[in-house]
């Protein structure tokens, strides 16, 4: 019988059914971060329960780490206790920690694939809602809470209800300066913030096949912003070439054997999805959010929508967003003055994200009065960017060039904006107060963010690049 790739991965990892009818799904790789891990270490110690597979468990310090050069545990005082608890817990339990000073430290969703800790067709869990980022290499990843994380540590399985299957077919060829971020924002706008609730989404179609792995990760990263349980792209030659020789992957003959298996990781012809959606990406322009949830999106040449153009069930939310964002309906997005630009996060801080942003910034200056930051997604990304001279380009233009971490995405490390500031950000959530009290966040791609930093106003990168801005 024809099966979807989701079914193949799920069925392989099905250990059995629990007494309460839930499926026990084996988790091949589990990655912890310091904000939540201490709960599990404390609870398991109290219960006298050992960690079943510390060798399949990894840990990073990412949410609370400062981004200033020369940072240590105390640079962000509200992170100190978390960093130390993580160090202590991983040491006691024999878990490999990518600590604040580790050359491979970074955001979990960036570090795990870049080191080959995640694999095509493998299951993966992180106590963080953006876990499905690693779906970009064909892994099936679940975000979870602290209790589920503790459960995985004790058992190496998750007790889940089988989700439904959705295929999002993204057709067409992306235009210049249009990337996965723009595609994902448009898809969220079309489906809504709960449009994929209960589903695992397989991203397919020509636009996805043409995307490099880093963009596929951006696409899968934003899956949770439309409520998806998980999201992935079936692996292909682009994936295998990207993964080859990453340190935690099998080598030599074992690589060949793994590769042979990975080539079978496709959805069979004729396999049925519970829901199929399509999006033609050929005519897509750069996208940007105008409101306070990630579905409130327009093209860069668009305007804040009129209430009459908004679905009645969404109108109250829109009115509240207008007020919070300080925007009137009908206002063009392009040209709005900004105070801040942030390029970073698990969504858009891998090396190619920084390369395309640097290409926009090269030889230009950040507009007067704008605070612009680049925070690489991992210390490896930072090192590679520096080797390529990207840090120079950003610094010469007036950007802050930071140490790796989650930084201003959630503001958990002290990096945040001031009340009332307007910020263009390459992150994933434009929720009220997320980047600081009363900060007005517009989500966009790295090139849109870079062009905005230069212009001092929300900018269409295509115009800046052609010299007309």
């Amino acid at each position: 019988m024809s099966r979807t790739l989701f079914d193949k991965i799920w069925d392989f990892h099905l250990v059995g059914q629990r007494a309460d009818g839930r499926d026990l799904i084996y988790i091949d790789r589990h990655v912890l971060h310091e904000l939540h891990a201490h709960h599990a270490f404390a609870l398991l110690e109290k219960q006298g329960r050992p960690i079943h597979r510390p060798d399949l468990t990894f840990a990073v310090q990412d949410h609370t780490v400062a981004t200033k050069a020369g940072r240590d545990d105390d640079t962000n005082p509200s992170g100190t206790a978390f960093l130390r608890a993580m160090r202590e817990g991983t040491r006691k339990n024999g878990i490999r920690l990518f600590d604040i000073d580790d050359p491979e430290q970074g955001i979990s969703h960036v570090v795990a694939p870049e080191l080959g800790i995640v694999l095509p067709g493998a299951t993966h869990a992180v106590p963080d809602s953006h876990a499905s980022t690693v779906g970009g290499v064909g892994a099936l990843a679940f975000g979870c809470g602290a209790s589920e994380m503790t459960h995985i540590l004790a058992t190496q399985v998750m007790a889940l209800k089988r989700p439904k299957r959705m295929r999002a077919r993204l057709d067409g060829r992306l235009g210049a300066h249009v990337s996965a971020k723009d595609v994902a924002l448009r898809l969220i706008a079309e489906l809504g913030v709960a449009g994929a609730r209960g589903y695992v989404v397989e991203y397919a179609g020509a636009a996805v096949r043409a995307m490099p792995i880093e963009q596929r990760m951006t696409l899968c990263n934003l899956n949770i912003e439309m409520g998806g349980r998980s999201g992935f792209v079936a692996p292909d030659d682009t994936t295998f070439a990207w993964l080859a020789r990453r340190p935690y992957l099998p080598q030599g003959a074992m690589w060949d054997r793994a590769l042979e298996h990975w080539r079978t990781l496709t959805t069979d012809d004729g396999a049925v999805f519970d829901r199929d959606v399509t999006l033609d990406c050929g005519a897509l322009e750069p996208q940007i959010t105008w409101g306070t949830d990630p579905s409130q999106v327009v093209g860069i040449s668009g305007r804040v929508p009129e209430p009459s153009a908004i679905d009645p069930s969404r109108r109250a939310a829109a009115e509240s967003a207008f007020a919070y964002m300080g925007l009137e309906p009908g206002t063009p997005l392009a040209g709005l003055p900004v105070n801040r630009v942030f390029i970073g996060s698990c969504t858009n801080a891998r090396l190619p994200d920084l390369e395309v942003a640097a290409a926009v910034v090269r030889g230009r200056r950040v507009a007067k009065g704008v605070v612009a930051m680049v925070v690489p997604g991992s210390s490896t990304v930072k090192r590679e960017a520096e080797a390529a001279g990207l840090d120079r380009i950003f610094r010469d233009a007036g950007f802050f060039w930071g140490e790796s971490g989650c930084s201003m995405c959630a503001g958990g490390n002290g990096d945040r904006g001031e009340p009332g500031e307007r910020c263009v950000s390459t992150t994933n959530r434009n929720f009220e107060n997320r980047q600081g009290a009363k900060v007005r966040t517009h989500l966009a791609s790295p090139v849109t963010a870079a062009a905005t930093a230069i212009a001092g106003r929300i900018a269409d990168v295509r115009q800046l690049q052609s010299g007309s801005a």
Partner: protein
Amino acid sequence: MQPFTSHAGIAAPLLKDDINTDQIAPVLHSRSLKEDYKAMLFHRARQREDGSEDPNFVLNKPQFHNAAILVTGNNFGAGSSRESAVWSMVANDIRVIVARSFADIYRENCLQNGVLPIVLEPEVADAFTARVVAADGAAPFTVDLVTQRISGPGGPDISFEIAAADRVRLLEGLDDIGLTLKQMDEIVSWEQRAAAAQPWVQSARDNR
């Protein structure tokens, strides 16, 4: 986990869609390993810009100070997976949330902490919401998981559906990890089979 059989108290209407976990349990400037979850609940929404209490926020109204049931809209608990967004409910003795729908991770986190997530059929939800608004905190509602009924002022009892397994788990306060550990033999034999079929998955070593 504290078993859930029934829970009675004031029902507070927070009638908005897409309330996310950043709103329910905001990240505060000073953080510690032992957070004050009681104070965390809707911390930002409870305050006006000058830091004073916002008298218009539903949980700040005198009649809802001791709310035990929260009635809300679609997609409740979207966003971050932080479990503090459920712990802060428990810390305030809110152990029933009646929403039009829940975000997946949030619903799981409720079940892990003895909080009953209820979704009613749309027409029933409309009627129940109207009763909660009309009661305005003057009389309590009772949510009984044994009989799967909600009773209270303004009308007859309302029955609600919940997956049988989730019901049992809440009723018995089952230790989720303990339940799975009963099948440790199966987990270990799965590992042995996987190690033979896909050895690269059962080993995660730095090959440098």
